[in-house]
């Protein structure tokens, strides 16, 4: 692998660029292109999933919890999630829509992904999020972001491993192909030059076989000469 190491402000950290020719040489014929927006959407959905899973364990007022659930459901496209509960709490939730939760862009992944609330006047008694709740939300967002980042890193690592394995396999196959080519070439040459067909070991073997044959012919001649008088009898078996 020889990725180009030019800095690119738009690039994802840890990612690399490969020329198409290089990929084609490695036998990669099809690529699936995922746009940045799609990736961001996927990330948002992952955060929303994580939020939904962790929501029940959070020490936040029910109203906030419900609001978070609705937001997450919206991102996931599940408007009808926990419908009976939603219907029951809908009037309360409507009251607090004025303080929306924003899941920030993933592109700025060097900074912690945070579920940041807009600037709210802390003295505003109408705001449902006090200092403690904000701190909790921030902590939650950090945890989720951490999870998400580690998951992404895992996926990236496994993909890198796969690519490395494929590269090694390609190298092996290339070497095998070269060896086959050489053998085929040698065979073609030997067919053209019949004098070079026999290898030394074959000659030695045929010499050995010839020696063995001659020794047995001599032995047989002696045996025939001596066994003239012996007539194998088959009677009296077992006596």
């Amino acid at each position: 692998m020889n990725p180009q190491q030019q800095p690119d402000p738009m690039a994802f950290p840890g990612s690399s660029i490969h020329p198409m020719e290089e990929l084609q040489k490695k036998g990669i014929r099809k690529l699936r292109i995922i746009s940045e927006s799609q990736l961001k959407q996927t990330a948002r959905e992952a955060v929303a999933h994580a939020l939904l899973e962790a929501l029940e364990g959070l020490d936040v007022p029910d109203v906030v919890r419900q609001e978070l659930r609705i937001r997450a459901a919206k991102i996931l496209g599940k408007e009808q999630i926990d419908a009976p509960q939603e219907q029951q709490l809908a009037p309360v939730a409507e009251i607090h829509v004025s303080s929306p939760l924003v899941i920030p862009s993933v592109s700025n992944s060097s900074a912690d992904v945070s579920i940041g609330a807009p600037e709210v006047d802390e003295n505003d008694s109408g705001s449902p999020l006090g200092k403690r709740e904000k701190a909790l939300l921030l902590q939650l967002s950090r945890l989720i972001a951490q999870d998400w980042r580690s998951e992404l890193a895992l996926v990236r690592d496994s993909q890198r491993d796969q690519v490395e394995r494929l590269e090694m396999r390609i190298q092996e196959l290339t070497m095998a192909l070269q060896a086959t080519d050489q053998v085929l070439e040698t065979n073609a040459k030997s067919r053209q030059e019949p004098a070079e067909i026999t290898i030394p070991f074959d000659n030695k073997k045929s010499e050995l076989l010839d020696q063995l044959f001659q020794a047995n012919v001599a032995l047989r001649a002696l045996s025939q000469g001596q066994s003239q008088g012996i007539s194998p009898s088959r009677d009296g078996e077992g006596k």
Partner: protein
Amino acid sequence: MAAKKQAQIPEARDVATPMIEDKVGILHVGIDLGTSRSAIASSNGTREVMASLVGWPKDSVSAKVLGRTVVVGDRVHENRLALNCCFPLKDGNLAFTKLKGDQRKVSRRAGVRLLAALRKAARAQRGQAVCAVIGAPAEATRENKEAIIDLAREARIDGVMVVSEPFAVAYALDALENAIVIDIGAGTIDLCRMAGSLPCEEDQVTLFQAGDYVDQRLGELIHEAHPEIQFTSNMIKLAKERFSSMVDTQKRAIVSFPAQGRPTKIDITDQIRTAVTELVPSMIAGIQKLVSTFDPEFQHKIRDKVIVSGGGSQVFGLQDALESGLDELGGGRVTIVDDPVFTGAQGALKLAQDMPLEYWNQIRS
């Protein structure tokens, strides 16, 4: 008339042994003719091993019980009380070559029966000529090799070639250069130096202290330690094959032999170890003889390629024991073959298959 008859003889022989046009008409066979067990491998994929033992029913009752007039192979062990048993091979050679009178005849017939049983085990198709390469001990006498050929012919094996058993092993493993092959059998231990040509007398050493010697020594040692115990040579052989060991292991060799008609458990670990270990010095001496008489430039090469085959190669710790012995000669490497029972037969089969067709036709004519 006489001239006419003489002219007819070669014609009749030609009819009996038609020329083989292609290798399809031949069943190639490799035979490892061993003192204790014989193995066969044939080109149709058949592989069999059987005890080198022939038995005839003692009387008409046993003949009726057994349902046959002669029994060959492992069944003889099972029915030995109803049979007159005969080992056709002794000390690696056909036993009849050293016998006289009736004993010679019976032993010879047993040899034919054993080879006929091996031929049958090869499962030749009707009309197929059976061409066999038979492995004989490294230092088998010329008389013994001739006897093998004669007996094989009587056993309806169409073409026969005799080869040194360790050479067959070397051929099977493609170790034809700079190697020493040791074939540990029941009757003999054959050592053969491979130098890229057919081994001659100087390249081979046969030791007559082999598996049978271990059985005998083991029997003596057990009798010394436990005089009240009753056993047969077959029981000793089975115990040896089960527990053979040259190194200290956690496992103890406990056997149940009768004493005064009562099964009694005895520990024969030390006796087995002692009996088996006694083989090593003679093997090392054999290796030393082959190494010291080899080209000094290549001596280290054959020391580094010592291949051990045969049933005795399975003794636990043999590899280490031989390598320790080789250390005194400057070190060496010992390899035990993967398939000790069939490697010789496989090598003989490979030789039979590689042998050109015209050679087989000449041998058969």
